[in-house]
Each structure stands twice: as C-alpha cells, then as structure tokens.
C-alpha cells in the first residue's frame, strides 16, 4: 500500500503553468525529499496534496483512496499535517491553544484530552516551558517546532514540510532539523521540500529533483547527489556546491 500517490498532476496559476504532470508515489514510513530551484513547483505540489490549491488535472490518492474532488476537504486535511516556511502560528493564542485548537474543534477531543496530547508532544520536543508563551515571544526555531507539534497533535498519517528551515537564522536550523530527524526515525511518512541538501541526503529514502514543474529525476540520495543522470540535475547541484550548500 502506498501512503500517497500523485498521478499526472497539473496546476497553473492563470497562464503560468506551475506543475506539468507530476507523478509521485510515497510508501508508508518513507521520507521523500523534493529538491529543485525556487519556482520549480515544490511548494505548490505540497499545497495541492493538502488540497489547499485546487488542481487542474490529475489525481491524488491518500492510502490508496482518491482524495481529488473529495466532498469533505476538511476530513482529508485532518489526516495530512503541513508545516510552512513562515510558521504561521496563530499570534493571538498561546502555544497550548495553538496546539489544542484543531484537536478540540476538529477532532472533538475534550480540553483535558487535547492538553494531555499537547503536553506530551511539547515535552518531547523541548518546549515544555513554553506552553503559556505567545508566539512572538519565541525564537524562530521554537516557533517552527511549535508549528510541527501543532500539526502532529492531529496524529496525521502524512506530514508535508514546506521549506521549514528557510526562514530561520542559520544557528536555529539544527534544532528544527533534529525534530524532523526524530520524526523520520519514528516512522512518520513525510514529503519535504528543502534547500538543505546535506539534510535531504541524510534523512530521505528518496530524492526527487523538480525542474519547471516536472519531476525530472528520482533516486536514492546517493544516486541523485553523487551520480545525477540528468544534465539539469547536474547543473543544479553544481550551483549548490558553488554556493557551499552541500
């Protein structure tokens, strides 16, 4: 059984075509990294999977059941966690409220149940003392970890991570990557768009190189990073190496 399958997905914004027939299959407990230049369609692909963007053509399956055209998008979304580049915590709620909002309002958990679940996750990711803080009192790294906890509190079967370290100061990147590493070890199925090539190499089972809305090359991290077949992939990685990001 595949956790996620995307078939011939196309998406355009007006005249601008962002995804031109993307095929992707993700097995349970697999971690797939999406790499590629800005504007190659990584973020859009993740947003389409979560039904945040309406797709033009193609089909998406979650645990072998089609979710494209789902009547209840909320029911689909609660099974998929997404973490954004810009954290997007709710600024008017403290950490605890941020994390318990959806479990209470969407899953119908009681306050006590939701808080037990939240406390457990916050403790696990070193945020135990931040429960009552408001987002603007937290560092970027802490905010992003809260955002990850907020998504995990829904117990999703799939996590989508959209360049979750791109908005962070360099010294804060490690703490967030560590959390994601722990999730991967725990067997969480994940699709992550990232610019952190060495991280993708360490954590991913498979790496997809996106170029102009297509998955141009798929392989194990070794295949992609040491032996890229496509000239475009080679060019991209050379540029990354020159910028000392690998």
């Amino acid at each position, binding site marked *: 059984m595949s956790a996620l399958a995307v078939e011939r997905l196309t998406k355009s914004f007006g005249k601008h075509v962002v995804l031109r027939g993307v095929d992707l299959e993700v097995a349970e407990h697999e971690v797939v990294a999406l790499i590629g230049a800005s504007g190659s369609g990584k973020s859009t692909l993740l947003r389409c999977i979560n039904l945040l963007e309406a797709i033009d053509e193609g089909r998406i399956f979650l645990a072998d059941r089609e979710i494209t055209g789902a009547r209840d998008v*909320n029911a689909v979304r*609660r099974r998929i966690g997404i973490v954004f580049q810009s954290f997007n915590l709710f600024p008017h709620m403290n950490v605890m409220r941020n994390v318990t909002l959806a479990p209470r309002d969407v899953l119908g958990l009681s306050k006590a149940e939701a808080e037990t679940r939240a406390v457990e996750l916050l403790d696990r990711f070193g945020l135990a003392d931040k429960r009552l803080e408001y987002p603007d009192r937290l560092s970027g790294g802490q905010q992003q970890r809260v955002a990850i906890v907020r998504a995990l509190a829904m117990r999703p079967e799939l996590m989508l991570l959209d360049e979750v370290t791109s908005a962070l100061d360099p010294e804060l990147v490690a703490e967030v990557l560590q959390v994601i590493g722990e999730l991967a070890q725990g067997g969480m199925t994940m699709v992550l768009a990232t610019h952190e090539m060495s991280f993708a190499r360490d954590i991913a089972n498979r790496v997809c190189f996106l170029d102009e809305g297509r998955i141009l090359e798929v392989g194990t991290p070794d295949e992609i990073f040491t032996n890229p077949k496509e000239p475009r992939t080679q060019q991209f990685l050379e540029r990354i190496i020159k910028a000392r990001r690998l």
Partner: protein
Amino acid sequence: MAIALGSTAVFFVVVAVAITHAPGWPEVRRQFFDWGEFKATFPEVARAFLLNVKIFCIAEVLILVFALVLAVLRSLPGPVFFPLRALAIVYADLFRGIPTILVIAMLGFGAPALGLSYIPKSVIFWGIVSLVLIYSAYVSEVYRAGIDSIHPSQEAAARSLGLSRGQTLRRVILPQAVRRVIPPLLNDFIGLQKDTALVGTLGAIEAFQQSQIDTNATFNFTAYLSAAVLFVAITIPLARFTDWLVLRDRRRRVAGGTT
C-alpha cells in the same frame, strides 16, 4: 511640557480677550452663558440626556453585531456568494451616501405613517433603527479592513489543520481582525454618541430636544450649553481612551511584546 502649557495658556487668553471684547459680547453672554439659566435647565436636560445614552447603548450593541454580519458576508469567497457580496456592497454604498438626518426623517416619519399594526410606532424605535442602519454601513467597512489585514497564510494554516471555513473565521481570523480595529471602531462610536441628538428631530425628548424646548420657553439659549456640556462629558473620555489604545498598540508593536 512647560512650553506646551505656556503656549496653550497664551492662546486661550488671546481668544478669550478677543471674544469678550467683541461688540456683541454682552448680548451673547446674556443669551448663551446665563448661569442662572444653566442651573435651571441643566437637571432637565441631563434627565433627557439619559435617553441619548439609552439610544446609544442599544444602537451600539446592534451595530457591532449587524456590521459584523455584513463584513463577513462581504468577505465570502467564490461565485456562489456573489449575490450576498453584491447586496452587502450596495447596502454600504447606500447608507454611507444618504445623510443621517434624511434616513432618520424618512424612517421616523415614514414607517409609523404606514399604519401597519405589527410594526412599532415609537419614534425612538425608528430613530434607533436608522442609526443602526447607517452606522452599520461604516462599521462593517472597519471590520472588513480588519479582516483583509489578516495575512492569507493564517487562513491556510487553519484550513490545513482541518478547520472548516466557519471555524477558521471564528477562531483565527475574526479574533485577530477585531483586535486590530478597536480604535477605529471606538472612533465611529464617538460619532454615534453625538448623532443620537438627531433622534430629537423626530420629537423624542432627548437632550437636544429638551434644550430646544427650554430655549423656546425662555428665549435664552443657555440650555444648549447644558446639552453641549453633557455630550462633551461622555465623548471626551471615549476619545482619550481610544488614543490610549492606539498608543498602547503602537508601543507593543515597537517593543515586539505580547499580543
């Protein structure tokens, strides 16, 4: 601070001297600033002013609710809701366009004249309805500005967690939007406090109407002063409170403190 106080004092002394040396001043003083008249009319006008306060309080609550409904209607996305959006836009255009006193006159004299047994005939009722209709048009625009100021990523975050559109609005968008627009909201309510006097044109004995009755009886205009003092007494604290909120908000944003 000392300079500010000094220049303010000088300014008022100059104005006071200019007015008190005007050729018509003795007459104006007798007509508008008669202490005896003031003492005689103030209690009556103050009693009538309670009606202004009542009108204001009832209208305010209704406006807060009705305007929010209008603003939400106008923020609904998609072609399905186009008729509702269009209706809300026409409404806002219409009631911001017609002078308040006209709406009050048309509804206050027109609606009871219909002679329908099932609608109230009280001019106070129709005065309140008019104020609610007009101010809701303004306040809904204020709310809408607040809703528009919330970044779309907040909605994306909420929807991605499985919250419905309604839950997202109620839990995430509106709490942030309303907080942002409290100062301009209060500003509109300062206007509303003053405009309660227009209900007097329908014959309701509120502060302005009462002072008019007093002036007509005595041919002395000091009763107007009584009414003015009362209005100022409640609008000034609200204005200062609004200023304070704005200042606090700005300080917080600069300091990056808690929301």
